């Protein structure tokens, strides 16, 4: 199973924190391929897709961030009505619970990639594969 490595960063829900973090990444010349933020009133998790997550994790830790490498499943969504729903139906039919999802755009393409985080990752991966969901090679995303 080839998962996409995503960088999850602990961040306080305070004015300027996301901006500051993105600013640091910009200074480090990190290209952000995808991003999402999940938060509560006080804190949240900033999730990033970057070309070299291991290196960026270290660079952030040197700056006192708490960062973790986590795995998501990238699936290609066709640019037509119901594209995403088809995928979600596979999950639902197989009783697979979704923790979260977010989309990344592809350059020069009408298609998008959706990143899925499931409660049971290995099982989900197998089921998606069996149902011919178009799982994308992570290498292709790192090098977008």
């Amino acid at each position, binding site marked *: 199973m080839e998962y996409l490595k995503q960088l999850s960063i602990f961040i306080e829900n305070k004015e300027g924190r996301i901006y500051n973090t993105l600013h640091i990444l910009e200074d480090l010349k990190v290209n952000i391929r995808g991003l999402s933020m999940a938060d*509560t009133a*006080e804190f949240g998790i900033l999730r990033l897709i970057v070309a070299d997550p291991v290196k960026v994790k270290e660079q952030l830790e040197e700056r006192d961030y708490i960062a*973790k490498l986590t795995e998501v499943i990238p699936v290609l969504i066709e640019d037509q009505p119901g594209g995403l729903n088809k995928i979600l139906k596979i999950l639902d039919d197989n009783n697979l619970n979704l923790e979260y999802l977010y989309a990344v755009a592809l350059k020069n393409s009408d298609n998008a990639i959706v990143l899925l985080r499931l409660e049971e990752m290995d099982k989900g991966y197998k089921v998606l594969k069996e149902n011919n969901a178009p799982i994308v090679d992570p290498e292709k995303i790192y090098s977008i």
Partner: protein
Amino acid sequence: MIWNEEKECMSLEDMQELQLKRLQDVVTRAFNEVPYYHKRYSEAEVYPEDIETLDDIEKLPFTTKTDLRASYPFGLFAVDQKEIVEIHTSSGTTGKPTVSGYTKEDLDTWGEVMARGLTMMGVDENDIIQNTHGYGLFTGGFGVHYGGQKIGATVIPISTGQTLRQIELMKDFGTTMLIFTPSYGLHIAEELEEMNIKPSDLNLKVIGFGSESWTDEMRTSIENKFDVPAYNIYGLTEVMGPGVAMECSEQNGLHLYEDHFYPEIIDPKTLKHIPEGQSGELVLTTLTRVGMPIIRFRTHDVTSIKHGKCGCGRTLAKMSKITGRTDDMLKIKGVSVFPSQIEKALLSIQGVEPHYQIILTRPNNLDKIEVKVEASPDIFFDNIKELVGIKEKLAEAIHDEIGLRVTVNLVEPKTIDRVDSGKAVRVIDKREE
């Protein structure tokens, strides 16, 4: 073995009789020989003959660190300076230090109480005591030194530091007892680990630790790392030095040498005695000290005292481990809370670093407690639900410890204010604003 069975196993009645006799004696001497006490007692209109029972001690004014400082340098001596054979001072963070003077008899008493404690820990003339407490103006090193010599043990007066040298001597001399502060002990343990020296490579059989606040977790960690029992030593320079109270093999409190130091527990707010067994501020009176009697000294240490026969056979008063300082005590919704309790609760959860801050506010006249805790990699998950779960778990642990509901917030690492010394600001009380 018991060093002084007569005194350490006395019946409560006999002990109180001895204490009263000694209290009357010390109050009389202090009133007659020390201008400070003469003045204070005359102002309060209380005189030595007013002490007819032990409870009458409550009539006497307290002595504070400020009083001692005001008497700098020799104002509290009850004898001529030529009778004083040794002087120690306790560090003052502001202004002058406080001076402690000892006659020959006082040093003998100091050695006696420490001898009792070392014996309690199973140490005797066959032992080699490596004393890493500092020798100098501070009393740290000398208590153990005098006690060790009194029981005929071999004392290595090495002081703190030079850890590699310490380890070399531990091996070469076959040290059987180590004396250290918990933090220095843990440092030695780290070095031993790094040098791949195991407890079985050493001849150690017991550890005495003190001069610092500590937690049960720290003691367990020390005992595991050295693979020997570790016992707490309590004392303070103003009263004598280390050796006022020490732990026995039961490890559930410290025997206080109450034939030499009379203990009271007061409510720090009302300054009145509180019932035996309840927690409050420890107040000490030296019953036998010749050079410098200290009467009703407010230690600001919070503990409780119980009487009764201990599992070790002694009847001496038993003082609980110091749970905090009254200076640190917070009154929240009428409940006494110590930052150390919050710390203990946090450390009870795996992976939590003790970097926290307590913020007190009073919206709508109701005390509200917020505890900020710095997140750490071990308690960070890529899942909001789990993070909220950690928050609730921490709040629950604190509630179990202090009995009050708190709001816990996770904050980014190194964001809790630190003062210049690098120590975190533990409490921000916004209730009076």
